[in-house]
């Protein structure tokens, strides 16, 4: 509670206490009026001042002015009838309670969200001649070596130069399994160092580091307003004037006809109390804010309330294969050379040597399968033959590594493989030695992810060969897929799906090569984006780790959030209209009006806070 909230709470309590005490005092006439004026002024003086300010600026529909007219009017009626002043004071009192509650609830959820996103590092330790010095991370230049002690947050992205430790990345990715790091590993800011001391050479400035970027993104997200928010803002602009005009009509027309003007002015005052739009206006952005904050806690960054809204309407999910459903890193699956009396280890050894200088993903996987590639074998005359493979001289033997065409050219009698994957053939001195099968493994949770989304809603688009795509689609249960697509084909295929779909279409990719499709989609979702700036730029929703189950999680969260938004809109507008009608025909009194104004707001705010509790 801040100072202003404390002061207002005190005013509310004092006024309420006086009001209750006055119930036990027997007094009539002018004395009663002045006694009741005390709690009214205690709780409402600022509203009166604001109303005066609004009047000075010709703002006819100022909320404070409306409240003032309603309460002063009720007071005047009470004087005329020498009746009960309690109603007038209660309107003001409850209006203030509502304002106070709103301010408290919003402040509380602001704080909760910023605690959820507790990844902002406060300082960095820089090594100087007199030991460690704590500095503002903003002042650390690229290339500085910083020290991170156990229990501290890594302040800036960098590379470990010394030390071993495990990192807790839960605040960034929602992944609770700690990550092992040692010298040479890239680390990102926002992770918590659990046990060892790490020395890190920074590779980015603080402002460009992951933690800062994520915070900026989440904070900006609620500035991109959704259609629901625009609707309610527009509605509020029309609602208040219309209700006020109705109130004026209600006070004048029936009074002239029937002459019972006390009754009709009272009913008009009820209208003024209900005319405040705050209950409608506050609950909608609060719901979105809480939804975005809650999702970010799980490593799902939604870049705007508008995207949260679109995400909830997603019917079709189009997915890239490589890096989204599969690991995206190729691995040696099998080495077949036994039938040719060639040692499998030796085959891999030779293939790795030939691929020594290549940067192709296939080459990387071959070298990974044979870790100590740089031994004392001589590797000479490396020659890359485009579209075929690579030829090199290893210890005097000519080794050719490549596809079927290459084998045909060197006259090696290659054999078909029964396995599905990329087949790399090896020939030694023109004689076929065997082949290596390289494949891209399916992600551990890909199958569950597909099941959760519903296989019939999924399209898989890939540039990979038909054979491999069919295998992956079959294993995951995906029925709709298109293979052998060039990047441009992906866009046109996607547009076809977009045209055929009745709901919104999401595209999920890893942000590499698929930026055009990401931006074409109703919602572009990039996954495994940790550390990839390009993906964060291009996508509307960013999944921090590469678990495909997060896709359905994100959709679930968005649906819950939007259903709460809808409940609030219908509930608030519904109750207000109901009270207006009942008020006009004389079935609702001032207390019902107070409920329609303050009660509805409190309920709507409480309902919005539910968005922070994530669905299971």
């Amino acid at each position, binding site marked *: 509670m801040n100072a202003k909230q404390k002061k207002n709470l005190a005013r509310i309590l004092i006024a309420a206490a006086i009001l209750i005490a006055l119930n036990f005092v027997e007094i009539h006439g002018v004395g009663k009026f002045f006694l009741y004026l005390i709690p009214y002024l205690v709780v409402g003086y600022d509203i009166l*001042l*604001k109303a005066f*300010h609004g009047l000075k*600026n010709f*703002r006819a529909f100022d*909320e404070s002015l409306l409240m003032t007219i309603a309460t002063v009017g009720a007071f005047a009626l009470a004087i005329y009838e020498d009746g009960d002043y309690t109603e007038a004071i209660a309107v003001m009192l409850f209006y203030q309670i509502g*304002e106070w509650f*709103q*301010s408290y609830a*919003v402040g509380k*959820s*602001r704080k909760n969200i910023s605690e959820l996103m507790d990844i902002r590092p406060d300082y960095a330790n820089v090594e100087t001649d007199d030991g460690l010095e704590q500095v503002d991370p903003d002042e650390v230049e690229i290339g500085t070596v910083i020290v991170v002690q156990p229990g501290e947050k890594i302040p800036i992205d960098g590379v470990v130069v010394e030390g071993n430790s495990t990192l807790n990345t839960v605040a960034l990715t929602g992944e609770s399994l700690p990550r092992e790091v040692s010298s040479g590993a890239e680390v990102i800011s926002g992770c918590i160092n659990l046990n060892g001391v790490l020395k890190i050479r920074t590779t980015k400035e603080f402002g460009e580091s992951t933690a800062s970027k994520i915070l900026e993104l989440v*904070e900006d997200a*609620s*500035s*991109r*307003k959704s259609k629901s928010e625009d609707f309610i*803002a527009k509605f*509020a*602009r029309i609602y208040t004037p219309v209700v006020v005009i109705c109130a004026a009509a209600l006070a004048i027309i029936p009074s002239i006809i029937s002459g019972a003007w006390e009754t009709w002015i009272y009913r008009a005052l009820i209208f003024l109390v209900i005319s405040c*739009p*705050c209950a409608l*206006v*506050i609950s909608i*952005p*609060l719901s*979105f*804010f809480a939804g975005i904050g809650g999702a970010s806690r799980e490593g799902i960054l939604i870049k705007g309330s508008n995207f949260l809204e679109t995400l909830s309407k997603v019917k079709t999910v189009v997915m890239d294969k490589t890096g989204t459903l599969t690991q995206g890193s190729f691995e040696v699956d099998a080495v077949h050379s036994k039938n040719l009396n060639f040692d499998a280890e030796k085959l891999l050894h030779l293939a790795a040597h030939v691929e020594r200088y290549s940067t192709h993903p296939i080459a990387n996987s071959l070298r990974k399968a044979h870790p100590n590639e740089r031994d004392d074998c001589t590797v000479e005359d490396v020659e890359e033959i485009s579209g075929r493979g690579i030829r090199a001289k290893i210890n005097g033997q000519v080794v050719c590594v490549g596809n079927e065409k290459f084998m045909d050219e060197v006259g090696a009698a290659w054999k078909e493989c029964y396995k599905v994957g990329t087949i790399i053939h090896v020939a030694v001195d023109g004689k076929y030695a065997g082949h290596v099968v390289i494949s891209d493994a399916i992600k551990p949770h890909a199958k569950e992810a597909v099941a959760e989304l519903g296989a019939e809603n999924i399209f898989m688009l890939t540039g990979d060969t038909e054979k491999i795509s069919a295998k992956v689609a079959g294993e995951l249960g995906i029925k709709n897929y298109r293979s052998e697509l060039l990047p441009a084909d992906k866009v046109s295929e996607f547009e076809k799906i977009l045209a055929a779909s009745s709901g919104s279409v999401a595209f999920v990719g890893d942000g590499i090569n698929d930026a055009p499709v990401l931006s074409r989609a109703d919602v572009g979702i990039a996954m495994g984006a940790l550390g990839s700036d390009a993906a964060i730029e291009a996508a509307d929703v960013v999944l921090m780790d590469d678990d495909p189950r997060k896709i359905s999680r994100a959709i679930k969260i968005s649906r819950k959030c939007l259903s709460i938004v809808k409940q609030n809109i219908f509930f608030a507008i519904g109750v207000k209209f109901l009270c207006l009608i009942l008020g006009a025909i004389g079935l609702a009194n001032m207390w019902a009006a107070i409920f329609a104004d303050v009660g509805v707001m409190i309920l709507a705010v409480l309902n919005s806070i539910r968005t922070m509790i994530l669905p299971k």
Partner: protein
Amino acid sequence: MKKTYKIDVDCANCANLMEAETKKTAGVKDAVVNFMTLKMKVEFEDGVDAKEVMGRVRENCKRVEKDCEIFL
């Protein structure tokens, strides 16, 4: 040119009013007021003095909502 300012305002509807006023101010191309983060993002017309425009924005906002504040 876009700039972000910290603001203080009590109610969500007042924030919407501030946004509408800011958008109407001469020299402002577009503006978004974010009530939840208490921030105001203002996009200025080309070649205007942001400081001078923001002075006017603040004045206009104060007129619709006495209690609001824009930290310039």
